[in-house]
């Protein structure tokens, strides 16, 4: 009998049967690139529609219409105008909507709502800024700085108080409720729930509920020693146990946040879809999440805050039980737009390096920067600042960590 053996193939190329779908035509092009990205964003946007109702979708529609208009205008301006592509601009407008708070068509907060807020103007202004940034940076792949990050951070700089969402629809009114319907008998329906949103059984008098201090605010207030308590001191155990919402609200949804980043599961499904379609590299989200998680444990945070000061220690060295440490890190991961940034922004062409090793190093740097900015600067916007800086490292990483040929 002849010997039969099955050695492993040398490489991990795509199977040709899977690659040749178009019978000899191009494998991928930018049309498909944007369409698949848009399909990936359907999952977090659907979660946004469920949690925030039609007003969130109205933000999306307004952003799309404004971007379309401004792109058509700016396409005619200068030689750079020719580099503006509608599909790219539309895709970035969708991404930007995912990063915006859902209450922009409601008002800054409840006081503004009563006064008739004009925060809706932020949406077209953001779109104008986005198209301007796109025009300046030259479109996809031409700049190491993501035009959307520049837009978002500029918006935050100017409209910081308007970018903290507090409203979410009640579970029984999801999708169909109105986010502005939050006042009953001249009183705001506030909620600091102990039970997860998904399990809530009460019948609220209004469609939406108002959460005065959201998880991201609680976390940054704690690490910036601004967390006020009645007793005058707070520990990390106290923060995790008493101040934070149920973790399920951040994982599944039900806690106010940006339109596309309120449900971690939806973001992960969208990211997995992009991975499955081969559009993004798994190394960046995977390595960055692991490194960020580890950095949350290793970077010094206040183990307890007293009236006289705080005890800054890495959590793994503080006298805190393991469950609390892991829960704190989980809150940091879920309360920020980290996952959205990793799956949808950090994997963008020209932001991340091209080589495999360089991508891993980039993800490590991004993870460390994200953890640092999240802990010490802003939980809500730290990941965007981290990506802005990490993207600048890409050319150097590509040059330093070159791919080595197989043989």
């Amino acid at each position: 009998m002849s010997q039969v053996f099955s050695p492993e193939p040398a490489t991990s190329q795509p199977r040709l049967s899977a690659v040749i779908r178009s019978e000899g035509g191009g494998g991928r092009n930018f049309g498909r690139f944007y369409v698949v990205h848009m399909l990936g964003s359907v999952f977090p946007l659907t979660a946004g529609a469920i949690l925030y109702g039609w007003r969130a979708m109205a933000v999306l529609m307004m952003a799309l219409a404004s971007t379309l208009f401004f792109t058509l205008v700016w396409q005619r301006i200068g030689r750079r105008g020719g580099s503006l592509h509608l599909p790219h601009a539309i895709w970035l407008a969708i991404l930007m909507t995912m990063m915006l708070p859902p209450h922009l068509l409601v008002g800054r907060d409840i006081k503004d709502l009563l006064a008739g807020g004009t925060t809706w103007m932020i949406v077209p202004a953001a779109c104008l800024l986005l198209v301007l940034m796109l025009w300046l940076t030259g479109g996809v792949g031409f700049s190491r700085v993501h035009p959307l990050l520049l837009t978002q951070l500029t918006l935050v700089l100017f409209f910081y108080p308007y970018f903290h969402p507090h409203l979410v629809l009640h579970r029984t009114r999801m999708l169909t409720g109105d986010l502005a319907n939050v006042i009953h008998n001249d009183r705001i329906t506030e909620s600091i729930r102990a039970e997860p949103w998904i399990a809530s059984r009460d019948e609220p008098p209004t469609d939406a509920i108002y959460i005065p201090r959201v998880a991201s605010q609680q976390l940054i207030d704690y690490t910036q020693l601004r967390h006020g308590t009645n007793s005058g001191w707070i520990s990390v155990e106290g923060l995790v146990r008493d101040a934070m919402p149920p973790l399920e609200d951040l994982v599944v949804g039900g806690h106010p946040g940006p339109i596309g980043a309120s449900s971690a599961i939806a973001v992960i499904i969208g990211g997995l879809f992009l991975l499955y379609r081969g559009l993004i590299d798994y190394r960046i989200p995977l390595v960055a999440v692991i490194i960020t998680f580890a950095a949350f444990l290793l970077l010094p945070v206040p183990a307890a805050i007293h009236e006289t000061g705080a005890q800054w220690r890495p959590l793994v060295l503080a006298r805190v039980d393991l469950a609390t440490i892991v829960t704190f890190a989980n809150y940091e991961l879920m309360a920020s737009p980290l996952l959205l940034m990793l799956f949808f922004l950090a994997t963008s062409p020209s932001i991340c390096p091209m080589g495999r090793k360089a991508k891993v190093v980039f993800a490590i740097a991004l993870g460390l920067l994200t953890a640092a900015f999240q802990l010490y600067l802003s939980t809500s916007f730290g990941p965007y600042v981290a990506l802005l800086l990490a993207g600048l490292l890409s050319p150097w990483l590509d040059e330093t960590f070159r791919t080595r040929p197989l043989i």
Partner: protein
Amino acid sequence: MPLPPRLIIPARSPDPKPKPAGTVLQKGQSLLESPGGPSAPARSKIIGERIVSLTNGALAYSVALEIDAPDAESSLAAEQLTVSAADLPTMDLPGILDRLLHSGVWADRRGVPDLIGQLNRACKRPIDTIICNCIDHEPPLRPNTVFASHFGHIIFSAIGVLKKAMNAKTALFVLDQAVPPSLHEALSHFAKESGVQIALLPVRYPQADPTLLLYSLLARPLKPGFLPVEHGALVLDAAAALAVGNSLLFDQPMLHVPVAVRDRLRNESQYVLAAVGTPVRDLLDWLEINPDRSAVFCGDLLAQNLATADTVVGASELKIHTLPPSSDSPSTPCVRCGWCVDQCPMAVHPARLLEASQQEDKHMALSAGLEYCIECGICSYICPSQLPLASSIRKLKVM
């Protein structure tokens, strides 16, 4: 396939010279002044010498023939004959080489880099492994599997003879691990008879490239462009083994070659025996494929080896693809997505190679892995900007 009215038979080298124009040849008579080499497949007249392009894009010195008996059908001796293990002749390598040269057997394609060159080199250095590369990585088109199922006895006998002659330790017949069990069983029988091992590989394009094949099977680092014998292995494919078997076992010259044609307009695959020197245009006409209404590519589709008007079938690529002509959409600048780098089976940096090509910077090209590129074409295929990466790399290589 019947013989076309004209054949342009490529020769491996311009020496020795062919017989003068106007010479009438009988079937099997050599085209050259000296005996041996390519021969006429039927009664025919030499009408001149040409330079034609082969199916791998290379140019070759050729002899044009006018066929007097165009209705003669192609056939291979192997179809009618059988051979048993006891019949395997014992020959030395120089003797085999002489016989093959006399029969006009040669092959030079991606799966079999310069067969005669390999055998020549094998006379001077030890060869421990013979690899018959029967991988088909384009699922609708399986020429190696089809040839192996039809001519398995000849192919395995040829490998057995070569193994004996080279005193090789191992002879491997490499197959896609997804071949039907019945075929595997049938081939196992031949393998046992001829002392050949069957190696199953999960097939991923471009696994059949000798560089990747040697790396996968033997962990030997064969640089693209070098002969596998430099690393102690002789590589041939089913069609080459068939030609060798016909020559060594039945003393048959290489008059015909099996050709696989994939018509993507009709979504059909066809396998034909075509006379060496048949213009691709005539072959497609006979298969009722209009070459003027389709783009014709030879070899692996992703390698984008476009056939020209004078391309002829011979010892080079035996796969032909016909596609609907596509309107070339313009390329857009590189966006540094890194997909080409990510998908490159040799882990070179195609985007940097393109940049080197644009700047005509050979040093940058070498640092990006130019000499390791196997020109599989995956980078061009995968590029969302539709940049001509593979063609730029080819240009760099001839710079």
